[in-house]
């Protein structure tokens, strides 16, 4: 399939997902009211409030988090040259989880909880990148440091689970599964702050192309591989940190979408990055809508949906592709 066609297809897919998110949700709303609320923004009423204050912000958050996780997955897979790499490989989620669990334990919620969680993410990013930089910033060191840090943080989380009350444990587990149901008021602004960094990543498509050939080849072609890797890893980790802080650990998007886009659009990051952004946004908006309606009136954590859908896709993809194409 030609690449222009892939991008066009993804754009249409994203539009359809946004429309689906607007017309369906936890509460039933007749389509005519949705259209009228959309056409008259200041109108108020149940439909107006539902559309402008609940559904649209939630679609915006899902779109931004989805495309951010997908594009971070692209960056991590290219830099670590590991098909299993994803935004959480370097242990960002571990720090975030610890922060969130501590906040829940202390009864903190809303924006302060998001900030504590983001602090946890930054701590683990700092620890992993710091440890790896002592050993020449090699891929194996980065991955090992990430795994060790994840283990360390999850052990601390387990420790807290062991001593906390069952209500707190339940709240924590729901958070860990990833959800977009209640982003606190200031959090959309945090996402908007992250947006310029995320939209800056396509400018590094050339560097990612070279880095995916290996450090030595990229060095021979005139790239400062160490510097490019450091900048991209810090940016992608911080973006992931914001996503984790706002929506918990949403599984599989950062792993599956980059693979799917490489299969559809090839390895050139000039196409993989924009197509992953579109696909990630559409996929998370779609999954989030499903999570609201599938066991109505209850809501499923969106991480459950992305995990199941992503897992099935990944198995099919692995079985259908030849070994050389997986990498």
């Amino acid at each position, binding site marked *: 399939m030609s690449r222009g066609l892939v991008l066009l297809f993804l754009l249409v897919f994203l539009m359809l997902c946004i429309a689906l998110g607007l017309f369906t949700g936890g509460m039933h709303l007749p389509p005519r009211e949705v259209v009228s609320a959309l056409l008259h923004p200041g109108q108020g009423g149940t439909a107006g409030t539902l559309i402008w204050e609940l559904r649209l912000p939630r679609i915006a958050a899902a779109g931004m988090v989805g495309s951010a996780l997908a594009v971070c997955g692209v960056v991590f897979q*290219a830099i670590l*040259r590991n098909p299993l790499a994803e935004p959480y490989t370097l242990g960002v989620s571990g720090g975030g989880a610890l922060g969130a669990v501590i906040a829940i334990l202390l009864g903190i919620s809303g924006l302060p909880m998001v900030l504590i969680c983001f602090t946890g993410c930054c701590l683990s990013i700092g620890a992993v990148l710091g440890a790896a930089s002592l050993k020449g910033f090699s891929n194996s060191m980065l991955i090992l440091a990430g795994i060790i840090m994840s283990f360390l943080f999850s052990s601390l989380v387990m420790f807290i689970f062991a001593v906390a009350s069952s209500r707190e444990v339940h709240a924590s587990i729901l958070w860990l599964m990833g959800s977009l149901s209640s982003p606190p008021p200031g959090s959309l602004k945090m996402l908007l702050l992250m947006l310029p960094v995320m939209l800056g990543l396509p*400018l590094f498509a*050339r560097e990612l*192309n*070279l880095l*995916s*050939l*290996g450090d*030595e*080849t990229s*060095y*021979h*072609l*005139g*790239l*400062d591989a160490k510097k490019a890797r450091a900048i991209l890893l810090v940016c992608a980790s911080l973006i992931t940190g914001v996503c984790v802080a706002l929506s918990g650990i949403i599984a599989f998007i950062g792993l599956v979408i980059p693979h799917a886009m*490489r299969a559809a659009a*090839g*390895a*050139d990051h000039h196409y993989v990055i924009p197509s992953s952004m579109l696909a990630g946004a559409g996929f998370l908006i779609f999954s989030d809508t499903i999570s609201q309606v599938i066991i109505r009136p209850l809501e499923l954590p969106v991480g459950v949906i992305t995990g199941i859908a992503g897992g099935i896709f990944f198995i099919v993809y692995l079985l259908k592709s030849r070994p*050389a*194409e997986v*990498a």
Partner: protein
Amino acid sequence: MSILTVERVTAGYEKAPVIRDVTFAVPGGGITGVVGPNGAGKTTLFRTISRILKPWSGTVRFRGDDISGMPRREFARRVAVIPQFRMIPPPFTVEEFVSLGRYPHTGRLSPLKQQDRRIIAETLELLGLAHIRTRKVNALSGGEMQRAYLAQGLVQTPELLLMDEPTAHLDISHKIRVLDLIDSLSVTAGLSILVILHDLNLASGYCNRVLMLEKGEIRAAGTPEEVLTRRTIEEVYRTPVRVGKDPVTARPHIYFLPRSSAVRRDGPPVRQTEKTNGVLTND
């Protein structure tokens, strides 16, 4: 004038140096071959010249300038490095993969210009890759992959091409094809080439100059006739050989003798060959 000079360079990894006090010059134009047994320091020398390793002491100069002070992209515009192929690249198309070699010539916001595209198209044509330009590079055969790497280096439009074992893992027809290409580039494009080769006969046939390394030091340097002598090869490789003259190219040709034949190397069977072919010498 020499395009590359290596002056008293010592380099290595961790504690022990692998190459010691190495001095030589690569003349502009032509092919210079580096030969030597495993562990002699060929790749360490290659990595030092290509700036992956920093020399512990000594200087490498490109057209008189110390390469350690050269900006990275400028170095990449003038020197192309093709390491021994190891990694299977991600599924770029052949054309995309080769185009990445234009990186040092292009800016972040300026995509490939018409001139860049012309160079890429010409190189694909020259290396016989034009008809497979849309194939995925990770699905190529060993010979095609080697040519794709070579093409990527050539679109850098370098003055000096460094290659580590470009013929490794290739069958004899692909070996000859790659070396013929390199040979014709050195003549038509005036490209200077430094190449590590394991096969002494290929080095003899294609190189204008040969450098033999032994235990991190230069054992011999000069024309193939000066370097590839029976005595030097037997001492460096600790293997019995005979050196004759190739009847077609008149360059030295090395005959390797199995150990089993070494015990009777002065005996009748070999002598008989000497007499009948008249090409074996006992220098």
